[in-house]
């Protein structure tokens, strides 16, 4: 794009060809008043405040709608223009309630600002007051349309950026107003409470309920919820977070957030935070000093270690904690306790991804970056309810479809929100993904759509793969999956036909006994069509927790040290032995589910759990509970007394993300800084400090003054993090691999060659799920998430507003199944499987696939994981949380 020069009020301004006069002016720091313009929304031309005079044009032109042309001479701050602007502004003010002093937007209102610029101090027109139209139905924000100036920013943001369209314009003439569908209160609409409209509103028409006090300082940090890794700015006043806003410059979220990041941080100042160590005395957890508690933990871990050997101790690290803390935790387990029994909840979500992709490509992480999604020609979303689990990534998918015409294939048994934007929606029977993918690949092969050069040059094992694939056929796949053959064929052609095609997947793929096969099949599909190792095309697992990527990277896994260096590789181990000064165990340790089994059988005697809640997240909860109770000693370190911490012998109070420094690694491998904004409550301490304190008591000194020193130690031992240090993480982090201090980080992986050399095809013959419906248990049960809650709800369920929007303990059932079972909306139903039973309320909806029951796992009132099947994937040892057989019994009518 070439540069052009225009003159505004005598100043020369350079701008790119194609930009508007207003854009050119604002980029150059020349002020032209505007109300309806937003740089990232389509120009709108409604407010008329940006009118300017252009030499050679008769009438005044709106600067936002007029393209800058080389040599153009523009007059903005001149009396005749300002006179017109003044009149427009006075009309707006006349129609505005006189309440600036008490308005929540006082001092940050753009209307006030423009009035001041134009020298309007007194209202010259009589005010004709509008009826106040107040909508307070949303738990987080208020809409006061009497203060609305109809700039349309909120409407356009909701439609253009969020693709939600909860609000629009209704009426005509003087009656024109921002309205919801049927003028319903906003809480009854499709609104997702993301807050985008609030941030855009130039006046006080949209405001946040809780933001009464302006902050005295701001701290940039990263959202603690999902793997998108959005940039947040916390507004702090008197030691409390009083405001949360999105970071507008952040390269991933670019000023957007979802409801959890925007409004879900109440947990930080919750009354229920653990503020003092607790020690079990006479069966009850009672307050203790740090010394007492830590001594007790050291004593008990040492005892188990000396009596039964180091492998009688097991530890769960945490995907919510920082990289530094995960590094220290696994170092503690390996160097101090002397066991590889360390794992974390990634086992339950993406173990199959890590296993499958590492074998196929040599790395288990997202091959591409989040922003590259927008450049894909075809996006294939399978087993990911992206809108609810990774909202900001969903925005990129919708932008690709709506703004750039990408095709979208959604494969999901449920009618998830993204299906609205899909060209094809494949509703496969749960647990038949391999059959579906094989059939797609068969079509691609048969129709000659495969990328033969890529296969030839970049991959191996194609012949074996092809031999197995030849056995599958479209018609039987259609029968197995329940997806019409024609749809499978269309999807295959779309994917293979696109210049750049990208696969996006999550737990719908991984949480199966065939999880690794599912991942292999996706890797095969990408290699078959040459869609790896280039921009905007690849295989992209979306990691759930904010730092599950970092916890894996830094070795909170039983078989690998930091940087995926194998514990049974003597060279790798030797490096760590030298650095840490102790011999290290060389046999891979126990995984999460294996730990619980070992606890049950008495092989594991003591456990140290940091920031995890297996009592709600793990499969077959009854069994987990029995295992934990069977331990001689359990230490839980958490910010709340979670279901798991309630069983502990010692509970240690930890600092949360807003109370410490550190780094998280987002799902796109982006290592980013979190920063301390407020002090931890009571005696709570950062997890890294607790681990150091404990380690010292067990005879191994860990001395760090600040997490940056831990990062330096990690970087020296972890090649993929080799070039990462705190000063290099400003302003927006680095994407690994980043091997040395000069390396700029890596946007997409496997360019020119795979991490493992050649990409490897793995034959994946179809296998059924471990437990299928039968006469006794006739339905399939599948589990997942809701937008408004996160994981086991420990954090989100402490935000009142989130509770209000999303009432607890539902399950979803298709109307046809509901009718045959005599179940109506709201009925209380007992769901039982071979492992247990829970009660939940019926939500009758076509979102569910016939024959399939859906249940979110956030709710302790109806813990879905009492029901799920702990059967394991043979390679990744991930349990089959996505499919089991269930029966229903109606207990109570709605009421």
């Amino acid at each position, binding site marked *: 794009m070439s540069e052009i020069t225009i003159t505004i009020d005598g100043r020369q301004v350079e701008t790119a060809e194609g930009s508007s006069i207003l854009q050119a002016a604002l980029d150059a720091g020349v002020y032209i008043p505007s109300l309806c313009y937003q740089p990232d929304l389509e120009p709108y031309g409604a407010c008329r405040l940006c009118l300017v005079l252009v030499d050679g044009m008769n009438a005044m032109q709106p600067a936002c709608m007029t393209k800058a042309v080389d040599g153009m001479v523009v007059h903005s701050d001149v009396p005749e223009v300002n006179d017109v602007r003044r009149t427009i502004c006075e009309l707006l003010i006349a129609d505005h309630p006189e309440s600036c002093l008490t308005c929540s937007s006082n001092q940050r209102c753009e209307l006030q600002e423009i009035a001041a610029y134009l020298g309007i101090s007194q209202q010259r027109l009589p005010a004709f007051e509008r009826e106040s139209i107040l909508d307070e139905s949303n738990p987080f924000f208020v809409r006061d349309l009497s203060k609305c100036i109809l700039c349309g920013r909120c409407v356009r943001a909701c439609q253009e950026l969020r693709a939600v*369209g909860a609000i*629009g314009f209704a009426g005509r003439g003087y009656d024109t107003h921002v309205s919801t*569908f*049927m003028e319903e209160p906003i809480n009854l609409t499709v609104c997702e409470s993301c807050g985008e409209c609030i941030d855009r509103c130039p006046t006080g028409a949209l405001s946040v309920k809780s933001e009464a006090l302006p902050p005295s300082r701001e701290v940039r940090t990263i959202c603690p919820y999902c793997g998108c890794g959005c940039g947040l700015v916390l507004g702090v006043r008197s030691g409390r977070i009083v405001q949360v806003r999105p970071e507008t410059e952040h390269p991933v979220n670019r000023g957007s957030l979802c409801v959890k990041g925007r409004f879900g941080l109440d947990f930080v100042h919750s009354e229920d935070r653990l503020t003092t160590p607790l020690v079990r005395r006479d069966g009850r957890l009672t307050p203790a000093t740090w010394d007492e508690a830590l001594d007790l933990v050291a004593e008990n871990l040492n005892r188990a270690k000396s009596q039964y050997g180091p492998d009688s101790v097991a530890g769960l690290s945490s995907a919510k904690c920082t990289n530094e803390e995960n590094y220290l935790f696994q170092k503690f387990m390996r160097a101090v306790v002397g066991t590889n029994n360390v794992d974390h909840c990634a086992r339950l979500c993406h173990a199959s991804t890590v296993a499958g992709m590492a074998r196929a490509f040599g790395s288990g992480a997202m091959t591409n970056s989040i922003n590259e999604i927008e450049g894909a020609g075809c996006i294939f979303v399978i087993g990911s309810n992206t809108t609810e689990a990774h909202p900001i990534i969903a925005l990129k998918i919708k932008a690709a479809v709506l703004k750039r015409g990408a095709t979208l294939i959604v494969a999901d048994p449920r009618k998830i929100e993204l299906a609205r934007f899909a060209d094809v929606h494949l509703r496969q029977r749960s647990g038949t993904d391999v059959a579906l993918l094989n059939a797609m690949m068969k079509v691609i092969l048969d129709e000659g759509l495969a990328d033969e050069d890529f296969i030839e040059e970049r991959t191996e094992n194609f012949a074996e793969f092809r031999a197995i694939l030849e056995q599958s056929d479209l018609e039987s796949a259609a029968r197995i999956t329940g997806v019409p053959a024609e749809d499978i064929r269309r999807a295959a052609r779309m994917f293979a036909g696109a210049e750049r095609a990208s696969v996006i997947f999550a737990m719908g793929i991984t949480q199966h006994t065939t999880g690794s096969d599912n991942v292999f099949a996706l890797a095969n599909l990408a290699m078959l069509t040459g869609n790896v190792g280039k921009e905007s095309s690849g295989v992209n697992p979306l990691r759930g927790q904010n730092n599950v990527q970092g916890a894996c990277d830094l070795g909170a896994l039983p078989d690998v040290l930091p940087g995926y260096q194998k514990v049974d590789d003597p060279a790798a181990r030797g490096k760590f032995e030298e650095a840490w000064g102790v011999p290290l165990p060389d046999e891979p340790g126990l995984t999460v589910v294996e730990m619980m089994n070992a606890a049950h059988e008495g092989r594991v005697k003591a456990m140290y759990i940091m920031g995890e809640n297996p009592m709600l997240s793990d499969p077959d909860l009854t069994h987990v509970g029995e295992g934990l109770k069977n331990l001689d000693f359990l230490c839980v370190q958490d910010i709340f007394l979670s279901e798991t911490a309630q069983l502990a012998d010692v509970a240690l109070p930890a600092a949360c993300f807003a109370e410490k420094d550190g780094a998280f690694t987002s799902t796109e491998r982006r290592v980013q800084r979190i920063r301390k904004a407020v002090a931890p409550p009571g005696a709570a301490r950062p997890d890294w400090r607790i681990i150091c304190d404990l380690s010292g008591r067990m005879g191994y000194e860990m001395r760090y003054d600040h997490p940056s020193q831990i990062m330096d130690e990690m970087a020296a031992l972890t090649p993929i993090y080799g070039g990462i240090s705190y000063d290099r993480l400003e302003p927006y982090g680095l994407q690994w691999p980043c091997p040395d201090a000069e390396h700029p980080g890596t946007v997409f992986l496997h360019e020119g060659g795979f991490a493992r050399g050649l990409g490897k095809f793995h034959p994946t013959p179809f296998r059924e799920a471990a437990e299928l419906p039968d006469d006794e248990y006739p339905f399939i049960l599948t589990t997942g998430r809701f937008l408004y809650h996160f994981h086991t709800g420990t954090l989100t369920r402490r935000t009142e507003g989130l509770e209000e929007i999303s009432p607890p303990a539902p399950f979803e059932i298709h109307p046809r199944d509901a009718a045959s079972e005599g179940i109506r909306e709201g009925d209380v139903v007992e769901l039982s499987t071979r492992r247990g039973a829970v009660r939940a309320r019926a939500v009758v909806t076509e979102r569910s696939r016939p024959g399939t029951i859906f249940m979110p796992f956030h709710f302790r009132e109806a813990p879905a994981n009492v029901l799920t099947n702990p059967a394991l994937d043979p390679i990744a040892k991930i349990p089959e949380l996505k499919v089991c057989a269930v029966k229903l019994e109606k207990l109570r009518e709605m009421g």
Partner: protein
Amino acid sequence: MQNELQKVFSRYQGRRDELIPILQDIQDALGYLPAEAMNAAADFLKLPASAVFGVASFYDQLHTAPQGRHSVSVCEGTSCHIRGSAQILRAIEKKFALKPGQTTPDHMFTLERVACFGLCAMSPVVMVDGRLYGNMSPAKVLKLIEKLE
């Protein structure tokens, strides 16, 4: 209702510029635009429901609520206003527990407000089923309405 809607949609391609004719067809088939129908049109055209509602609310001849068998419109022009149209409106609102734009539960009539009929000499003016009545008072209007059937 599903059948009628499907019949309407079958005549269109699903392009966004077809929204207005689609809404007209739906209204012809159903008498007004129920929420469910607007939602279906939104799905059909891949538009937000709020945008469909916005268009429906823009045009006088599109109705998002069921219409009465008769229509009663009260003029709110300056002249009528000065001579008591507000009292007339209030009387109707009170007697029938109705707001402008709404319809009586028995579907007898729909109440509307109008900016000006251009009959200021006879203000206040009320229109019933397309016929204008001048020099009205609350009592006279209520009597007119009572005669509707």
